Structures are given as C-alpha cells and as structure tokens.
C-alpha cells in the first residue's frame, strides 16, 4: 500500500500543528465558534447530537495492521473503545473531547492517517472496490489511480471551495462493488481489445434528496488523460455549479440543469485547453512509484486440505465459508469478509479489541492487508484457503464470524438519530431489530442475497435508494416514520428503488419487512431467483399488495 514520504509527513505535521494552535485559540476565547467551526470541519471534526465526532479518512478503504492498531488505540485512549466504519470507507469516533483531538490527529499522523477533507466542499475520500487488487474478476487494481487522485486533490488550491462536497469512486472490475453510478464522478476501468487501458467516466450521480444515477460522460478515457480530465470536470463544475442553493449545488444538478451534452462540451473544451500543458511525465513517474507500493503480495499455493476437512465436518464453518468468501484471482486463495454485523450489534462498529485481533489475523493469515468496505465490513483480501478454518476459529471467538455477508442482516445503516445531528429518525435500532428478528425465524439463509440499506434522513448516507429494500427514516409530526423503497441496486446494473407508499411507524417496520420477504418466498420461481431478480420479473405490485394488505399503515 501507499507509504508516506518525508513530504507527506511534513505536510501532515504542519497541518496538525496549525490545528492544535486553533484549538488552543478556541479554548482561550480568541476564536469564536463561528470562526472556529470551518477550521475544525476542515480537520474532520463535527459536532453531533451528544458529542463531537472525528471522521478519519481511510483512503480507498485500504489499511495496514499498524494503522488498524492505531485506530484501536485512539478509540481506547480518547474515545469509548470502539469506532464506526462508514459507507464512505471512513471511520468515525463518536465521543472525542475537543481538547484531545490534536493528540488524536498526531497519533493518526504516526501511521499516515488524517481527517483532512473529510468535511467541507472539497474532494472527499476517494472510495474504491473493497476487493481491489484481489478479485478474480478484476481488470487491474484501481488503487494506484485512487492514490494518484488523492494526491492531486488533497489541498488542491482550486478545489477547496467547490459549490458542494465531491465524491469520487473507482472500480477496476466490471462487477461494480463501488456504487460508481451514485457518485459525483464514477470511474470504471476498461481494457480495450487493442490492450489500451482507460476509464469509463460517469458524472453527476448521487443519492440524497434528489437521487440520480450518473450518466456516462466519456465511454473511454485513455488512462493517461485521467487527471487532466478530472481537472476539467472539476473546473467546469466549479464555475457552473450553483452556489445560490445548497440543495442544488451538487454536480448532479449542474449536469441535469445544463444537460449532459452541454456539460460535456464545456468539459471537453476545458480539457483541450489544459491537457497539453499537463505534466504527464511527472504524473507517469508518480504513478509508477505508487504502483510499486501496491504490488501484490507473493501468494504461494498451500494445501487446501484443512479447508475441505472443515467444510465437511463443521456446519458453522461451512455456512460462513459459503457466504463470507469471494473468489480470489490467485488459485488457492480467497477474499474474506469479516462481518461487522453480528445480529443485534451496530452495523459497522468494531471495538478496539476486535480491531487489534483483525490486525493480528491480517498479519498471520492475510499478508498484512485489510480493507474497509462501503458495506461497513472489514475485508482480508488475501487469505490462503488452507488457513481459513484457523482464521474462522479466531474470528468466531471474538464475535466476528457471523455468516451473513451479502445476506439480509448485512445491513448498511447510517448513524441516524442515535448520533447524527441531521437525522430525522433512528437507523441503528431498525437494523438491529430486523437482524435479530430474522435470525430468530432462521430465514436469513433461505432468503439468500439481499441488500437492506437504512438512512436516518433524506441525505441518504445509508444508500437506501440503492438497497434492494431501502428504508428511510423521517420525522412525521414528531413521530418516527419509515418509508420503504424496493428494487434499488448499486451494482453495474444500478437502479434506484421506488417508494412503496405510506410509511410505517418504528414498531411496524420489522413486520412490514417480513411481509415483503414472505411474499418473496412465495413468489420466487426457485431458490436461485434472488429477491432483486424476483422484483424485476414481477414488478412492485405483488410486494406492495403484501405490504399493505390488511395493514394499518398510516396515511403519512
């Protein structure tokens, strides 16, 4: 993975020194809150419902064991012994004290982590396929490009005050695990028949109050043009984007209001202007330097006997292996999803102890690599299949071996009203109640692949629009009310879910989900027809009928 050089370290040290001084000036009264607020936000420090919240960027979701141990230490020393992994592949600490934050930032800097550009109208953490560099279906590892984008966009003087925040996602695989069409810019690596590498460039996707799937602005952008082309998009947006209305300021609205063709013309014109002067040599050299740091570990093939033996003998291991493993490009290896979704726990939370254990296991069995998925799990991307039984046993002892990756209880849930100052309803308890309810019914494995995603307000951090079942928590006259959407999908066949109708009170939401899923079990052609496939075949009608039949849904 990327290792900081002296320049990077010096930059972070200087930023942290500045912030320490700013905190001191806030505390001694020389800075008012109005003056301090933008400064703390530039360093990822939010004020939430019950406390400050520090959001730390995990670039393209890649961590090494030292970094994960440092996050564990920070959680223990200055927070409440856990951290929350988010859909942005970031980690959030929910309880830091203002006076401790400079120390926390210094501790992060020791392992090359920071909280810069995790807030504000800047280019935020670049997210990537969490199976990058390991997936069998991958064209190439997208992370060197993601790192290049990170370096280019960090502290980029022209793009510190964009009309609104800006999110870029990248995948190197035709199977889109990075939800590229729901980002301001989505990049999909392509390799043409003639061997030329490039990107399909998607612009103007986003969820939130106006969900849109981004259209393709360039079918094939030669890889070497990536930075000047991104620069052209950002520059065009920076000029054209609406600053008069916060709700119309995202690039999706800019593209929508001006039309894709007009927007594309402007981008191409700008690109033609800046491309010739772009320093491609330096960029290529930097990319080569970065690439060397992302070289794949040496994956030696080992005996798979232990795997087969455990798979036959141990039903618990078998259930886990059948759901939480993903095909690796190297023979005899697997990508492991470490579920942070134990039934009844908070999705995405990991205690310091769990983080340390995962760091140890990554070292012992996984070539020291860890990923954070936007689905709020941790990933060990390179594990020899023969080591899986031992790995599983160690995870199980720490409550980290729930066999539910990609299943009903692998729910994305934003912090919602339990933490978030913007929330209109709770998300976490809804996720917990759904997970425990269906676990009791023992229906989860029967139902099969299913993505439930929950947001606690219209901002849609929980990606509910692209959940096969999406749940949006709202405040209806002072009471929590949950709207359901069906048929959303964040993959390469992306679609936005459609609202079923009136919402449900908090205590009605679990039975509502059960009615939908019982209908699915009745309606599916066979076990291989997933919920999403059945929905696409049948449309919303039979599910709505089941949902509202004889039901006392209020007419919210």
């Amino acid at each position, binding site marked *: 993975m990327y290792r900081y050089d002296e320049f990077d370290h010096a930059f972070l040290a200087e930023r942290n020194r500045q912030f320490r001084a700013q905190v001191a000036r806030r*505390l001694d009264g020389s800075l008012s*809150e109005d003056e301090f607020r933008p400064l703390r936000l530039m360093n990822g420090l939010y*004020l939430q419902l*019950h406390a400050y919240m520090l959001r730390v960027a995990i670039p393209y979701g890649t961590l090494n064991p030292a970094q994960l141990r440092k996050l564990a230490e920070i959680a223990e020393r200055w927070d409440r012994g856990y951290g929350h992994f988010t859909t942005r592949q970031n980690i959030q600490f929910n*309880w830091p004290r203002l006076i401790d934050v400079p120390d926390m930032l210094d501790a992060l800097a020791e392992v090359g982590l920071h909280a810069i550009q995790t807030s504000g109208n800047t280019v935020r953490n670049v997210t990537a396929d969490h199976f990058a560099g390991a997936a069998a279906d991958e064209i190439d590892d997208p992370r060197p490009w993601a790192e290049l984008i990170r370096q280019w966009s960090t502290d980029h003087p022209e793009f510190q005050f964009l009309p609104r925040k800006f999110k870029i996602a990248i995948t190197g695989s035709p199977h889109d695990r990075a939800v590229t069409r729901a980002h301001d810019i989505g990049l999909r690596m392509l390799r043409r028949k003639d061997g030329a590498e490039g990107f399909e460039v998607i612009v103007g996707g986003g969820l939130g109050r106006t969900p849109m799937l981004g259209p393709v602005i360039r079918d094939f952008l030669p890889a070497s043009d990536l930075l000047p082309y991104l620069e052209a998009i950002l520059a065009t947006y920076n000029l054209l984007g609406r600053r008069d209305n916060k709700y119309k300021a995202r690039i999706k609205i800019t593209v929508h209001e001006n039309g894709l063709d007009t927007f594309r013309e402007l981008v191409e014109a700008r690109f033609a202007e800046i491309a010739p002067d772009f320093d491609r040599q330096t960029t290529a050299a930097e990319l080569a330097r970065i690439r060397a740091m992302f070289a794949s570990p040496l994956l030696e093939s080992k005996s798979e006997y232990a795997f087969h033996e455990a798979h036959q003998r141990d039903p618990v291991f078998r259930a886990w292996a059948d759901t939480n493993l993903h095909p690796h490009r190297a023979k005899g290896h697997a990508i492991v999803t470490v579920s942070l979704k134990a039934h009844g726990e*908070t999705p995405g939370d990991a205690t310091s102890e769990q983080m340390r254990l995962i760091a140890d296991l990554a070292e012992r069995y996984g070539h020291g690599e860890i990923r954070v998925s936007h689905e709020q799990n941790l990933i060990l991307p390179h594990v020899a299949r023969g080591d899986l039984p031992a790995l599983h046993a160690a995870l199980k002892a720490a409550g980290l071996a729930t066999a539910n990756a990609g299943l009903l209880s692998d729910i994305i849930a934003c912090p919602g*009203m*339990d933490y978030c100052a913007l929330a209109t309803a709770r998300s*976490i308890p809804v996720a917990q109640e759904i997970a425990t309810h269906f676990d009791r019914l023992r229906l989860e494995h029967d139902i099969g692949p299913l993505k439930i995603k929950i947001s606690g307000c219209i901002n849609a951090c929980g990606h509910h629009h692209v959940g096969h079942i999406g749940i949006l928590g709202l405040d209806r006259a002072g009471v929590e009310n949950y709207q359901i959407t069906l048929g959303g999908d964040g993959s390469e066949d992306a679609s936005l879910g459609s609202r079923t109708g009136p919402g449900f009170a908090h205590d009605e939401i679990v039975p509502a989900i059960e009615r939908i899923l019982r209908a699915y079990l009745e309606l599916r052609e066979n076990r291989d027809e997933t919920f999403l496939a059945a929905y696409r075949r049948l449309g919303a009608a039979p599910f709505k009928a089941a949902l509202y039949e004889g039901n006392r849904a209020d007419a919210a």
Partner: protein
Amino acid sequence: MSRKPQLQVVTANALISGHSVWLTASGGWSPRMGDARVFDDPQQAQAALAHATARSDIVVGAYLAPVRAGVAGPEPVHFREAFRRDGPSPAANAHPRS
C-alpha cells in the same frame, strides 16, 4: 384567545466535551435535562438564549427546545430532544469496553 404558554429550556453542547447540556436556574450548565430552568415567557427565554450564545467559551450551538412539565422536571416534546437527554439507544452504544 388564550393559549397555554410554550415552555422552553435552553440547551447546547459543552465546548470541551461536546456533551448535551441544559441551562439551569443558577445560570450554570447541567448534563441533566431535569435540572434545566423552564421558561414560560418567550422574551425571557430569548434573553437567556442570547446570553448563552454570548458565552461561547463554555457552550456551542445553544438553542431553545420546547418542553412539557413532568413530575421530575421538564420533559422533551420532540423525540430528538429525548435522544439528546438519554444518549444513543442502549443497544446502539453497547460495546464491551476493552
């Protein structure tokens, strides 16, 4: 037209800890909503808010929240304020402290 006066409290987050706090009758800040001074006069409430906002060395983001009278002091009208009073749902914040 006679209306029951809207009862209000002044609430904010403490500058250093960020925790939710309520303005008390003695002019201090308490982490317990039950300790809050209840205003039934909107003008007094506004004045207290203005005063609190000026003390930005102690608290951040002060605002007025409607309450109703309860047996053990003021109680929240809106569930958001109930969350601020009670903290996250127990299950959401239940982690074995390592």
